[in-house]
């Protein structure tokens, strides 16, 4: 009898222990919701611009080096967010424009820090489902952040990684980016036909074909009557590069910025060159290897295409 009482007590203890462990696990699992990220627009814009690039996150193993590099290069400042010491907001003139996310480099196959491009949607779940249905993948399932909204990380059929975000207070308005802000994004892929179809399905883009001699597969993805992003076939030696999104920060002098980047421990991957819009652009890498672009944009730039 005593033995059966002891067994019953042990069973109760074990059930209580299990309940406690599950409670702890659930709390940890639910931790993403506890991270307080500010809304993209304050006050809420209430605007919706599906397909617009509205945010970017850098994932890097070294936050301090990233802060030093981007702070010195673009005048960005940084602010910690409650709930996660590994996530830092990037601000320009007090306005948030990006995030830095510290994450250890995974062991095993080579991995490269990168900027993650966020595209506006109104329904993250629908975007996830559509991506999967049309050859894409869900890399990080949808998560809610109380003030920011709902987001998920996806890969397109070519393997380029991007995120979708349904911003809670609405999307940022359309205006010309100031120096130091994101101004343009390009998607470089192996199969432009399949990729334009995929993105058109997800975001309802109006696609413009800008093919020309020497630049045979170049598309512009547009919504609301504005160019939202470019889509290019990877260069001829495309086997050297994984399909990817490339985000450009507006600068007043691409040559000067490239020199400065080198001095700060970065690298120049594509030297400053005149592009379609009449200004110079360059592709750089930060000290961790994350790739980004810089682009001049001036109302006084020539509108003639470069030869």
């Amino acid at each position, binding site marked *: 009898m005593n033995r059966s009482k002891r067994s019953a007590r042990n069973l109760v203890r074990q059930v209580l222990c299990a309940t406690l462990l599950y409670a702890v696990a659930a709390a940890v699992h639910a931790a993403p919701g506890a991270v307080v990220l500010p809304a993209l627009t304050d006050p809420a814009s209430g605007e919706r611009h599906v397909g617009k690039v509205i945010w970017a996150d850098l994932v890097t193993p070294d936050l301090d080096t990233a802060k030093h590099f981007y702070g010195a290069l673009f005048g960005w400042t940084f602010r910690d967010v409650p709930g996660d010491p590994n996530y830092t907001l990037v601000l320009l003139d007090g306005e948030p424009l990006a995030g830095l996310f510290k994450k250890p480099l995974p062991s095993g196959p080579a991995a*490269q820090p990168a900027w993650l491009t966020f595209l506006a949607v109104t329904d993250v779940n629908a975007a996830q489902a559509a991506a999967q249905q049309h050859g894409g993948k869900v890399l990080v399932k949808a998560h809610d952040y109380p003030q920011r909204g709902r987001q998920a990380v996806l890969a397109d059929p070519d393997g380029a990684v991007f995120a979708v975000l349904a911003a809670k207070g609405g999307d940022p308005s359309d205006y010309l980016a100031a120096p130091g802000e994101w101004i343009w994004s390009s998607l470089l892929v192996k199969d432009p036909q399949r990729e334009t179809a995929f993105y058109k399905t997800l975001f309802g883009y109006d696609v413009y074909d800008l093919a020309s001699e020497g630049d045979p597969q170049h598309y512009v993805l547009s919504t609301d009557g504005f160019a939202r992003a470019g889509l290019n076939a990877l260069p001829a030696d495309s086997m050297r590069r994984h399909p990817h999104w490339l985000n450009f920060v507006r600068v007043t002098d691409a040559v000067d910025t490239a020199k400065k980047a080198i001095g700060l421990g970065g690298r120049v991957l594509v030297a400053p060159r005149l592009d379609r819009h009449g200004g110079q652009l360059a592709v750089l890498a930060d000290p961790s290897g994350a790739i980004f672009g810089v682009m001049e944009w001036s109302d006084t730039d020539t509108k003639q295409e470069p030869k």
Partner: protein
Amino acid sequence: MKRVSGSCKLGSLALLALVALAACVVGGYDGDVGVGYVGGFYEPGGYEYGGWGGGYRVGPPRGGERAVGGRGAPSIPHGARGGGGGGHGGGGHGR
């Protein structure tokens, strides 16, 4: 008997702990763990960059440039912050 009971208890707890921890792990591009902010990823490494020939262009059109089919390609928003996008065909991300 007492020793066996203690071992069983320890074994049960270890198993439960393992199950509980396994429940925390969420799938990701390179194994994200659901603690704090979720969404970071690392791209595959080992690729070189470059190979952009002279005619390779990735920048946005300035507006009015003719796309295939004769349509005028739009540009980025060009309006000032707080003043609207500046009308269709203008410029930018705004962010």
